[in-house]
């Protein structure tokens, strides 16, 4: 049995988690204030995931549109994912929640600002 001390990144509270691992499986997560922490602790030990936020260029406005994945994607894919994000441009109008890229490492890349 092995224990890992982690800091939950689920929200700015940053709870100190203790995750117990046995035979490659998570036995318990303690120290979390809410259920998200338990999920984070488990994922972090087994297969870490992160939400990616970035921007894409708005062709007909000349500025940037902020985007994010609508769920966390595997951490090891972040740099590869950035290449795909930087290869995309969009045209206004765009609304919050519009899908910019679908089937994106198990998530959608969505707009996070309204550009009229």
């Amino acid at each position, binding site marked *: 049995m092995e224990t890992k001390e982690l800091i939950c990144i689920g929200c700015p509270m940053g709870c*100190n988690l203790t995750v117990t691992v046995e035979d490659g499986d998570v036995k318990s997560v303690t120290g979390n204030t809410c259920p998200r922490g338990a999920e984070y602790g488990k994922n972090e030990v087994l297969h870490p995931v992160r939400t990616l936020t970035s921007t894409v260029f708005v062709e007909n406005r000349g500025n940037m549109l902020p985007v994010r994945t609508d769920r966390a994607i595997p951490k090891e894919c972040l740099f590869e994912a*950035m290449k795909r994000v930087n290869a995309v441009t969009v045209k206004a109008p765009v609304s919050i929640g519009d899908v910019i890229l679908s089937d994106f490492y198990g998530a959608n890349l969505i707009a996070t600002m309204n550009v009229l």
Partner: protein
Amino acid sequence: MTDTNVTKARLVIVGGGPAGMAAAIAAYDAGVTDVLLLERGNALGGILLQCIHNGFGLHRFGEELSGPEYAARYEAEVKKRNIPFLTDTMVLSVDPDRTVTAMNSTHGVFSVKADAVVLAMGCRERSRGALSIPGKRPAGIYTAGTAQRYVNVQGYLPGKEVVILGSGDIGLIMARRMTLEGAHVKAVCELMPYSGGLNRNIVQCLKDFDIPLMLSHTVSKIHGDTRLTGVSIAEVDEKLRVKPETEQYIPCDTLLLSCGLLPENELTKEAGIPLDAITGGATVNEHRETLTEGIFACGNVLHVHDLVDFVSEEAELAGKSAADYILRGARKAASPITVKPAGKVRYTVPQRIDGEGEDVRLFFRVGAIVDNAVLTVKQGDTLLATKKKRRMTPGEMESFVLPAAKLAGVSGELTVCVESEGK
């Protein structure tokens, strides 16, 4: 606007960030619909518009939103109520009699006479940390927030080889952002023996990318003539003096400064509103009313928040209190309570308690890391409340509620103290 360029509004709000918007909505919902919201930027939303990372709104909405999404929810509420707002409008002064003078290209300079004013100007980055570094001032040195605007709004990466001085959240967020955009962030130097940023940002912005966080380190020299070519960094001793023998050279083309935020209180000072020397914001009571009657303050202009959710909550309180003041008049206690920080507590907000019969939530920050922290609230030797926490850090705002029942009959001074258990 009339010919004389003086108009009236029951409530004027200075600043259209999350604090200003939440205050406007709360005042409107409390019955004061004649509100005017003034914002110098070209849109409502404040600093959130450049904070494209996620982590906003978990407490409020139970969702992890990006800054622009959080701002858009409040903007939609402002628009739904048809609350009048002016963007591209700079407030020039606020008088203690609650006349607000502002300027924009449509109306020129104009004044608004208000029954109450809410200050919500937010904060700006300290650049002080950089002033004392020897060397020239070549191109390539930015505050982290400026770099954030370049990258996230203008789509321009200010450099490729980066050193960051200061471990405030904006610096940490920018370390990750620039790394993902292909820059090499070589080190984050922090003068203090602890980080000023949230733990979650140390994990997800530095550790995830193997960016070294060098505590008790500072930038001791700046190299380069027209463009930055490198910096020298060195360890500091307990008195924060550079240890010359530890100096090392790091080639880089960009230095970001993330040395903390400072409430933007020029208007407040000029109005003669008393400030708290520690927070850099106004001294307020539990309604977020300053010591100048009818003028309220909330959000980062009052004290630096790390969580926008708390900004919104505080702003709703200020907006509602301003509406109460307008509709029902002043409610000053005959004998206000002064709240004094003690032990490891650096400051509290509010600093005064004026009313009676209401629970009061006190916010505070500690000045050093405190393990096995014990919080005590006392009047003289009488213990009113106590609370324990495994760890308190300067980077995180703490709060607790003082129940009305405990406050009944209390007058004079309350001390709020944090010490390590056993001390």
